[in-house]
C-alpha cells in the first residue's frame, strides 16, 4: 500500500460528495454539471492501481468507517467509473440544468463507487443506501405521471431491500464472535453462525431485489423506462452492480453450501429466461433493455449460485468479470437509443453496427467482450445442466437482442432527420468503443492468456447459441405482433393493486384509534395497564 493508493481509495467515494459540497452555492451551478464527469476520475485511478497489483485499505477507527479495495472490486470499479464518466458527459448538457438531478446524480455516484470499496458492514450499508435512495431523483426527472409512479415503486422496493439488508447485517454481526464488523470477518464466521440460514436468505433477498431477480424484478422495467437516458444508462450499468458486489462480498464462496447455491442458481436461471420471455413482448426500447438486464443479472446470480454450491475457487472474480462486461455494454446501449433517434443518415450505419456488436456481445458472440465474459464463467457453471442452461440463455439473449436491434432500426428510420447532438455522440462513441475494447484489455491482466479458447472448435461451441437464437428470432418473426402484450413491469401491477388494497386497513386503524382515544377508554386502559404491569412484575420472578 502506498500513499497514492490510499488517497485514491478515500477519494473514490469522497470526491463526488466533496464536489457536491463545494457546489453548494447557487453560483457554481455550471461547475456542478462538469463535476458529473470529473468526479469519477479518482475512482478510475484507484481501479487502475488495483488491477495493476496494488491493494489498499483505509480505516477511520474513531468513527468506525473503513475502506479497502481488492482485485474483484477493482475490475468492477474500473468499468463503473468509465460508465459514470460517459453517462456524466451525456447528462452534463441537458439533464444537469436541473440542480436536483445533478445532486442526486452525484450522491448516487458516490454510493455506486463506495459499495465496491466498503470494508465493514456499516460503511457498506451507508454507501449502499446512497447508491439506492437518491436515484429516486434521477427517475423522477421527467416529472410526468409515469415517472412518478416508477419512482414510487422504485422507492418501495429500495426501502424494503434496505430493511432486509439491515436485518441481514444484524444477523451477520451477531454471528461474529469477536464483535468485528469487518465484512471479511463476518463472512468468515458466517458458515458456523447460528443465524447462517436467516442471514443468507436475507442477503439473497436484499441483493436479489437490487439486481431484480424474479419475482422481485417488477420495478426495473418501470424505472429504466421512466428515467432519462443517461440516468437509465448509469442505473442499469453501474448502480445495479451494487447488488452484484453485495452478493460477491456477502456470499461465503469458500464454503460449499449446495442447498443455498442451487436455490440461487435456480432463481438466476428463471430470471434469465423470464426476462427474455417478457422482453420480446415489449415495444419500448428502454423496456426491452430493462428486461435484458433482468435476464443478464439472472445469469450472474446463476454463476454465483453454482460457485457457492460447490465452493468453486475464483467464483467471486469470475462473476465480477462477467458483470463488468455488462456495465459498459448496457450503459452504451441505453445511450444508443438516444443517438439512433437523432442520428443523421450519414451516421446511422455506424450507430447501428456498433449497437449490433454490443447487443450481440451480450449474447456472447465470439470475439466480442461478451464472449470473453462467458469464457470466464465457464468454470463455475461447468458442463452439466447449468452449462447447458447458460448456453440456452445465451440463445435467448440473442433472440431478445435481435428484437431490440429491430426496434432500434425501425425507430431510427422513422425518426425525423435532424442534426446530431455532438455531446451525445462523442460520449456514446467513447463508451461504445470502450465496451468493445476494455474487456480485451482486462482479460489478460485479470484472468490470463486466452490459449485454448481461440481454437476453432471452441469458437464454434460459443457460436451455436447465437446462431440458434438468430434462427429462433427468424422463426418467430411472423408472430412478432401476435405475441401477448405484457404491460411493462408485468407482475408489478398486481403488487400495486394488492398494496392499494392494504391501504384500506388504515381506515380500520383510524376508527379503532378514535375509540381508544375516548376519555373513558383511555383512563380504563391506564388502570388496566397498571394492574397488568403489577401482575407482570409478580410473574417475572
Amino acid at each position, binding site marked *: 500500500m502506498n500513499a497514492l493508493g490510499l488517497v485514491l481509495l478515500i477519494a473514490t467515494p469522497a470526491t463526488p460528495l466533496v464536489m457536491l459540497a463545494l457546489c453548494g452555492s447557487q453560483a457554481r451551478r455550471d461547475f456542478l454539471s462538469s463535476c458529473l464527469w470529473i468526479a469519477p476520475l479518482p475512482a478510475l485511478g484507484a481501479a487502475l492501481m488495483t488491477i495493476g497489483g496494488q491493494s489498499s485499505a483505509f480505516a477511520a477507527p474513531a468513527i468506525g468507517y473503513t475502506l479497502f479495495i481488492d482485485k474483484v472490486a477493482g475490475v468492477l470499479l474500473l468499468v463503473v467509473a468509465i460508465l459514470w464518466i460517459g453517462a456524466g458527459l451525456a447528462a452534463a448538457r441537458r439533464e444537469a440544468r436541473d440542480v436536483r438531478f445533478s445532486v442526486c446524480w452525484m450522491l448516487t455516484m458516490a454510493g455506486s463507487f463506495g459499495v465496491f470499496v466498503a470494508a465493514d458492514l456499516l460503511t457498506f450499508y451507508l454507501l449502499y443506501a446512497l447508491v439506492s435512495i437518491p436515484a429516486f431523483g434521477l427517475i423522477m426527472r421527467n416529472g410526468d405521471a409515469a415517472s412518478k409512479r416508477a419512482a414510487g415503486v422504485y422507492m418501495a422496493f429500495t426501502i424494503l431491500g434496505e430493511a432486509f439488508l439491515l436485518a441481514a447485517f444484524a444477523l451477520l454481526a451477531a454471528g461474529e464472535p469477536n464483535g468485528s464488523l469487518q465484512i471479511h470477518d463476518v463472512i468468515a464466521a458466517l458458515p458456523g453462525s447460528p443465524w447462517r440460514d436467516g442471514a443468507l436468505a436475507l442477503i439473497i433477498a436484499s441483493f436479489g431485489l437490487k439486481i431484480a431477480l424474479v419475482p422481485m424484478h417488477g420495478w426495473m422495467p418501470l424505472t429504466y423506462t421512466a428515467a432519462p437516458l443517461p440516468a437509465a444508462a448509469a442505473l442499469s450499468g453501474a448502480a445495479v452492480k451494487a447488488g452484484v458486489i453485495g452478493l460477491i462480498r456477502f456470499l461465503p464462496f469458500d464454503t460449499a453450501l449446495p442447498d443455498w447455491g442451487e436455490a440461487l442458481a435456480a432463481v438466476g436461471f428463471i430470471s434469465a429466461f423470464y426476462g427474455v420471455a417478457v422482453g420480446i413482448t415489449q415495444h419500448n426500447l428502454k423496456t426491452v433493455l430493462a428486461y435484458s438486464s433482468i435476464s443478464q443479472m439472472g445469469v450472474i446470480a446463476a454463476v454465483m449460485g453454482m460457485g457457492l454450491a460447490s465452493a468453486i475457487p475464483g467464483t467471486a472474480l469470475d462473476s465480477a468479470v462477467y458483470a463488468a462486461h455488462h456495465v459498459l455494454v448496457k450503459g452504451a446501449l441505453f445511450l444508443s437509443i438516444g443517438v439512433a433517434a437523432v442520428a443523421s443518415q450519414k451516421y446511422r450505419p455506424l450507430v447501428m453496427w456498433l449497437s449490433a456488436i454490443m447487443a450481440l456481445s451480450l449474447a456472447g458472440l465470439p470475439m466480442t467482450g461478451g464472449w470473453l465474459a462467458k469464457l470466464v464463467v465457464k468454470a463455475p457453471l461447468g458442463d452439466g445442466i447449468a452449462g447447458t442452461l447458460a448456453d440456452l440463455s445465451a440463445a435467448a439473449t440473442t433472440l431478445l437482442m435481435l428484437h431490440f436491434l429491430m426496434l432500434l432500426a425501425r425507430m431510427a428510420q422513422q425518426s425525423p432527420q435532424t442534426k446530431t447532438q455532438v455531446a451525445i455522440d462523442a460520449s456514446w462513441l467513447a463508451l461504445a468503443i470502450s465496451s468493445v475494447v476494455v474487456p480485451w484489455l482486462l482479460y489478460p491482466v485479470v484472468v490470463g492468456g486466452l490459449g485454448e479458447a481461440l481454437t476453432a472448435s471452441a469458437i464454434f461451441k460459443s457460436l451455436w447459441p447465437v446462431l440458434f437464437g438468430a434462427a429462433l428470432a427468424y422463426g418467430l418473426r411472423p408472430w412478432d405482433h401476435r405475441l401477448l402484450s405484457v404491460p411493462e413491469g408485468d407482475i408489478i401491477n398486481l403488487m400495486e393493486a394488492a398494496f392499494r388494497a392494504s391501504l384500506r386497513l388504515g381506515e380500520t386503524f*383510524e376508527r379503532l384509534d378514535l375509540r381508544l*382515544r*375516548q*376519555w*373513558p377508554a383511555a*383512563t*380504563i386502559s391506564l*388502570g388496566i395497564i397498571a394492574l397488568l404491569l403489577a401482575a407482570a412484575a409478580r410473574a417475572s420472578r
Partner: protein
Amino acid sequence: MTAATLAGFIGSALVGLGLYGLITDPQPIRKILGFNLIGSGVFLLFGIVARKGAAAGFAADPVPQAMVITGIVVAFSASALAIALVLRLYEVAGPVSLRSEHTSNKAEK
C-alpha cells in the same frame, strides 16, 4: 382495627371512587373532583405510612407528612389550572365535554 388501618381502607376506597368518577363523569369539572378524590386517597396512604412510622417520640413519621403538605399544594395548583382551562374553554367554545373528541384527525386549520 386501628385508626391507621381504617385510614388505609378509606384511602384505598377513595382512590377507587375517584378513579370511577374520573373515568365515567363526562363533565370536566367532575373529573377534577375525581382527581382530587384520588389525590386525597393517596395522601391518606401517606398518612398511614407516617402513622406506622411513629417513633422517636413522634406520633407519626414527619417526612411523609411533609410530603402530603407539599402534595396538597400541588394538587390545589393543578385544580386551579384545570378550572381556569375549563372556564376558558366554555368561554371560547361553549359547553363541551372531554368525552367526544373535540378535533377530528382530519380537521384543517
